């Protein structure tokens, strides 16, 4: 199973690189979908099928669909690809690369330090997730629900006919 985990992880990293470097917005979003599916696969491999399935339903199946939907509605065409090419000059890569490199160093330091838990200790099923959400994390769930309600009301207000 470990080998599949690393394959999924490699797919996630490579497709995310394509998301950043891609010029066509729809192709970049498709790469992001692949990346999210790979992350879902990693959840399955780690023994969290519930989280993996929700990752696909919520991120790949709903949020990314809306992203692609908006790009389709704008129907940007060839002009934006030229614009992207114009923006993505080597000079613009320098600062983000330094920031990402610093994060990579921190990550490597953590891995080298051995402060990580071994993967796939136990399978987490839906019931355990639910018990955790409505036990120790109840306050966070309630706060998130209020945030979503506020967003819903705001969307309703913006969308209503005058």
């Amino acid at each position, binding site marked *: 199973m470990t080998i599949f985990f690393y394959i999924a992880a490699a797919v996630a990293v490579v497709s995310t690189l394509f998301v950043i470097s891609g010029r*066509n917005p*729809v*192709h970049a979003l*498709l790469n992001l*979908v692949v990346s999210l599916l790979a992350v879902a696969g990693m959840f399955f491999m780690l023994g969290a*099928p*519930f989280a*993996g*399935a*929700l990752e*696909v*339903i919520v991120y*790949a*199946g*709903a949020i990314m*669909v*809306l992203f*692609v*939907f908006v790009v*389709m*509605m704008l*129907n940007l065409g060839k002009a934006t690809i030229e614009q992207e090419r114009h923006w993505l000059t080597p000079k613009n890569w320098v600062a983000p690369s330094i920031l990402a490199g610093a994060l990579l160093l921190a990550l490597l330091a953590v891995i080298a330090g051995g402060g990580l838990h071994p993967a796939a200790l136990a399978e987490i*099923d*839906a019931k355990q997730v639910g018990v955790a959400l409505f036990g120790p994390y109840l306050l966070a769930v309630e706060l998130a629900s209020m945030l979503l309600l506020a967003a819903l009301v705001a969307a309703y207000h913006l969308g209503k006919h005058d």
Partner: protein
Amino acid sequence: MDAIANWFASHPQFTAALIACIKAVVILLGTVIVAAWMIWLERRLLGLWQDRYGPNRIGPFGLGQVIADMIKIFFKEDWIPPFVDKFTFILAPAIAMGLMLLMFALIPVTPTWGVADFNVGVLLFLALAGLEVYAVMLGGWSSNSKYALLGGLRVTAQTVSYEVFMGISLMGIVMLAGSFDLRQVVEYQAQNGWNIIPQFFGFCAFVIAAIAVVHRTPFDLPEAESELAAGFHTEYSGMKFGMFFVGEYVGIVLVSAITVVLFFGGWSGPGVASHAWLAFPWFALKCLFFMSGFILLRASLPRPRYDQMMAVGWKVCLPLSLINLLGTAAVVLAGQGS
């Protein structure tokens, strides 16, 4: 011969994997063949209900019509228009067909047959149904033509809206069965009666949502020929169009099968307990009933207006499935308390 038998007996793990693979291939081929003959069934039944014959020339009852059509579509010129986005244009029909077939892996056909048993089967079904929208969306976008794009936009809004309560309408069943596992849902029904009775409102919402998600008549607004030419597949030809076309029929078979598994007891039925071989005939019979039902829907219902369809989804079906969810939760809690 004995040597081969001995070798298989001494490698039980390999033998089990081989048998599982063979079962998976049989289910895959069975699905595709049933879906292809759905086309014949639909044309014949539509003919019957509209007081005409339908295709009856090739083979007995016109059964060879599908083979003739398939040979024709294989040899048609598979033309990719020069203005399309080539990669996504080719990818879209593959997603349409592939995901539909992948969903069949989740269906428990009989107690011993079925491709994969996941303990989150219901969720995986919803996940794959959610990804299915990319096929039509990308087909519509990559075609680079206005009718295809409008069809793609319609299908996206439609699917995203209807998926919301498709998931919610199934949660009542999950609560009753106490598991996301489709096999346990069937076993729960074999012991406690079919879910259609306690979950009638969930059933109504689910069937409406499922028809909308596989964009089947009367909810085939994305390909409404009166206003959008052929909608998202306007620019497709040859076998790529064939993949969308057969994919739709695989979708009907799939929706029928999942409805049977979730609401009508799957393989369970009178006599299965004593005669195990009756499991598959029961499953097939129930599926055939629903497949014919979807054809009857197509024969009898007109297409609604697009805004009417979206309004019904959000204003009727979503509240209905939420009330169903709360009601089921209350009943389950009360049952546990006593």
